[in-house]
């Protein structure tokens, strides 16, 4: 009951804001949305602490149950989503993107959050798919309506790319889910895993992996992501990075890895290799990219490459690494997108080719946080990004039995090279933005101090705290995920 209420609250408030948001002013709708986000988080906390489980038969024809439950694998994602939702709502106090009313924007944000929370809590595969789809339209509207106001054609292109790619992915996943459900005789998650590597089992896993790899995204299927990230408003980018991509990694863990481990082992080397190549590809593009927002989007591709590699190892450590990388990337990318959104707001664009006053001089606090975010992104020890990458490489070094070790070791080496590239592009960005080409006060312009403060400062501070905490004390998350959840056993 509490869990259902925690999901219904943002959904209801979001729907009301979408319909009546423009009649409400920006401030009231922000308070309403904030109350919904915080209330939902409180209810979720209560539900998780009480270990609540919901299970109601919803569509008898499909055997679809409205089942909600949480375990060690879903809790990190639920908490991340809850936190990011509150932060995104709070961030509108700093900036509401142009394109429509604040109420409508916040309504879409809440709908995305509600759908994602439902997906992470779903105890039924088809319900997971439905929740996956709930996210689609509000996010499409966020990109298409509140996206970058400069270029209508690019906005349309990005929005429809997002919609169609994700629709392909989720429908492929649906076919896989239905085949799996038919084979297992139930649409629930908590059923015995499919054994064997027969052609049908491999087909199921192939469909699931393909569908989720588009969402994650894994290297050759990533082309929707940079466009969507670049165009989306700041809050939309944060949601994309911290919530939507996580649907992909959570789905990969929950569906192919846990539901059909043996058949997954057949495809896993390919996924791992694609992940490794993705890390390098993302790094190479970042070295040459001239738009800061797009650069961070490509760095997301690289990070998701690590997640793909970690998942494909199939070991318990690999799953933990994948969850760790996902959560860390959620926090780091959120921070970076908020910072870059702020810079874009101040500069008018996020181009790196324009010579500007160095942040070190103009806005030291923002500069410092940017340094922290970027170094966390490149995997500096002591920050959240490090553990995810390290655990991934360790897991890839000794993959679960039945997998060709050489492929995984090769992928790990490729990924390590990619991680080194990350250091290169981070240094490049810092040189351009933080140190700056142009000396402050040059060409007679006065130094305009536009440092972050207020809400922006608070939001980034929370994220920084999270990143440092996870970096210094990784056992918070590792303890949560070390116990295999009730249900199918995982290959050791």
């Amino acid at each position: 009951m509490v869990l259902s209420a925690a999901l219904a609250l943002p959904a209801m408030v979001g729907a009301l804001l979408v319909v009546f948001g423009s009649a409400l002013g920006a401030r009231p709708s922000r308070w309403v949305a904030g109350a919904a986000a915080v209330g939902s988080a409180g209810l979720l906390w209560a539900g998780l602490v009480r270990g609540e489980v919901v299970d109601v038969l919803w569509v008898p024809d499909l055997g679809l149950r409205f089942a909600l439950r949480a375990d060690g694998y879903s809790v990190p994602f639920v908490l991340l989503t809850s936190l990011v939702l509150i932060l995104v709502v709070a961030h509108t106090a700093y900036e509401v993107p142009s394109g429509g009313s604040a109420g409508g924007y916040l309504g879409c944000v809440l709908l995305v959050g509600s759908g994602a929370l439902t997906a992470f809590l779903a105890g039924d595969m088809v319900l997971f798919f439905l929740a996956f789809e709930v996210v689609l339209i509000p996010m499409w509207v966020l990109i298409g309506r509140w996206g970058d106001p400069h270029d209508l054609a690019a906005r349309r292109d990005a929005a429809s790319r997002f919609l169609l790619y994700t629709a392909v992915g989720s429908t492929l996943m649906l076919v896989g889910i239905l085949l799996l459900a038919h084979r297992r005789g139930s649409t629930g998650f908590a059923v015995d895993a499919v054994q064997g590597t027969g052609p049908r089992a491999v087909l199921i896993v192939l469909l699931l992996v393909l569908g989720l790899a588009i969402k994650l995204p894994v290297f050759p299927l990533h082309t929707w992501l940079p466009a969507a990230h670049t165009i989306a408003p700041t809050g939309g980018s944060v949601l994309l990075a911290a919530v939507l991509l996580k649907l992909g990694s959570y789905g990969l863990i929950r569906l192919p890895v846990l539901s059909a481990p043996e058949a997954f082992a057949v495809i896993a080397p390919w996924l791992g290799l694609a992940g490794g190549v993705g890390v390098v590809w993302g790094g190479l593009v970042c070295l040459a990219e001239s738009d800061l927002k797009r650069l961070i989007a490509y760095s997301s591709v690289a990070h998701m490459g690590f997640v793909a590699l970690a998942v494909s190892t199939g070991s318990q450590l690999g799953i933990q690494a994948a969850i760790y990388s996902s959560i860390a990337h959620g926090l780091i990318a959120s921070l970076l997108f908020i910072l870059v959104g702020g810079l874009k707001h101040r500069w008018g664009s996020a181009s790196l080719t324009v010579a500007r006053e160095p942040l070190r001089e103009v806005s030291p606090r923002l500069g410092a946080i940017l340094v922290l975010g970027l170094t966390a992104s490149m995997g500096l020890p002591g920050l959240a990004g490090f553990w995810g990458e390290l655990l991934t490489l360790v897991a890839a070094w000794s993959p679960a039995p039945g997998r060709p070790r050489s492929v995984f070791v090769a992928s790990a080496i490729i990924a390590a090279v990619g991680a080194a590239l990350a250091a290169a592009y981070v240094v490049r960005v810092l040189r351009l933005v933080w140190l700056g080409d142009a000396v402050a006060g040059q060409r007679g312009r006065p130094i305009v101090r536009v440092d972050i403060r207020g809400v922006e400062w608070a939001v980034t501070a929370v994220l920084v705290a999270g990143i440092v905490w996870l970096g210094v004390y990784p056992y918070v998350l590792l303890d949560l995920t070390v116990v295999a959840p009730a249900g199918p056993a995982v290959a050791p």
Partner: protein
Amino acid sequence: MNSAVLSLLPAAVAGVGALLVLLVDLVMPRSQLWQRPLGVVILLAATATVPVAWTIGWFAHTDRSGLPEILASIGVPSPARVLQVVALLGAAAALILLGHEHREAPGGLSVAVALVLVSAAGAASAAASVDVISLVVSLEVATLPAVALVALRGRRGAVHASLSLLMTSLVSFAVTVLGAALYLAANSSVVLSAELVGAGLDARTTRPALLLGTVLLVVGMAFKLSLVPFHAWTPQAYREGDLGVVALLVTTSKAAGVGGILAVLRPFIDPPAPFVLAERGLVLALAVLAVASMLIGAVGALRQTRPLGLLAWSTIGQAGWVLLPLTALTDAGRAAAVGYSLAYALATLVLLAVLRRGRALPGQHLSDGPEPAFSGFLGYVRRDRIGGAALVFALLVLAGLPPGVYGLLVKVGVLAALTAEGLWVLAVIAVVGVVLGIAAYARWLAAALGRVPERGAEAAAAGRTAYGALLVLGAGCLLLIVLSVWPALVAPFLH
């Protein structure tokens, strides 16, 4: 009264109602006010008889010894009841949405209303028929009034559209009759029963005739459902027909076609013994029709710039979706097909009501010419809250995306029926259909959700409200929302 005769009650009420309308017209030939309310009341009464007749307990298994074969063979299996309701209520919605120009048409409103009633009667009886003769007769009774209604609009384009609709319908009639004759020749009976088909398929001499007859019957239904390659009439008829006539085509005619195809396939879906070999050919034929319609319809819809063009092509695509689960030849597949038809009919009715409403409001930029382009809908959500919300919701139901959950659930049902029978190749092809469909509907959706053009912003509340359109729109949306939250409501009636 004999129970088997009762099964024709909904059709009989609608048919007698048509006569009643014409009789009242003799008494008061001038007035144009009473026809629509009377027609709607008659159709509601006919709808009410569907559950009444059901509770009296007649269906295919009733003892009918001593009745003439034709009469005896009419019974209503369960999914057909849903189709009957769709046909009758859809016709009521069509009456409400019927344009005013039918008053000036020859015969006035009375003839138009009587034609709608006759079409509903035919569709109700087609859905209920279990023998090929009553099937052929009822389908023609359902189709011919639609042809006449398109023609009665009197414009040049409309008359031409009705000519192509008529020619298609004639050819389909001839093909269906040929199929019926072959079926009769093979089985020595016109009853579509599993026992007869099983026996017919077992005998070497009758098998080719039986299969050919079945395929021809399916092809005849494919014309009615506007499946590719028998779809050419659809875009023209939709573009030239009045909104009410289009509503009749998407609900009543569609229900008749779906009911017909279910009747033809029923012997293969509820078999006493498996006829594996014959099924394979039949499945292939159905799959080709379904996949071609789904894909070509979606691609055609993608190329449209105007709502009615989009609706026409999407009808073709959605007809493919209705046929797709039937390739599984299972009860689950039949339930999925009927559920899909229901979602499609409701959502399309809502869209037609939005179009009617948009036309009634002046200064909405929707009244330039008979069909506004998508660009006429820019920012429609802002200009007309109720209509805009309904438009978005109905489009999402058709595209199969939340919050149009029912639209998504019926798509899941279709895919589940396919995967359960191992037809995963079709399911994977259907992924392409899903995405093309979303892309097609997204264009109208994007316009409606887009930013408001400067000049249209203030004209919102002006003009008179089309209460009829509001009624159809409200009822359709309400039903879709209820079904989204509680799909189990109709589920028992689909099996």
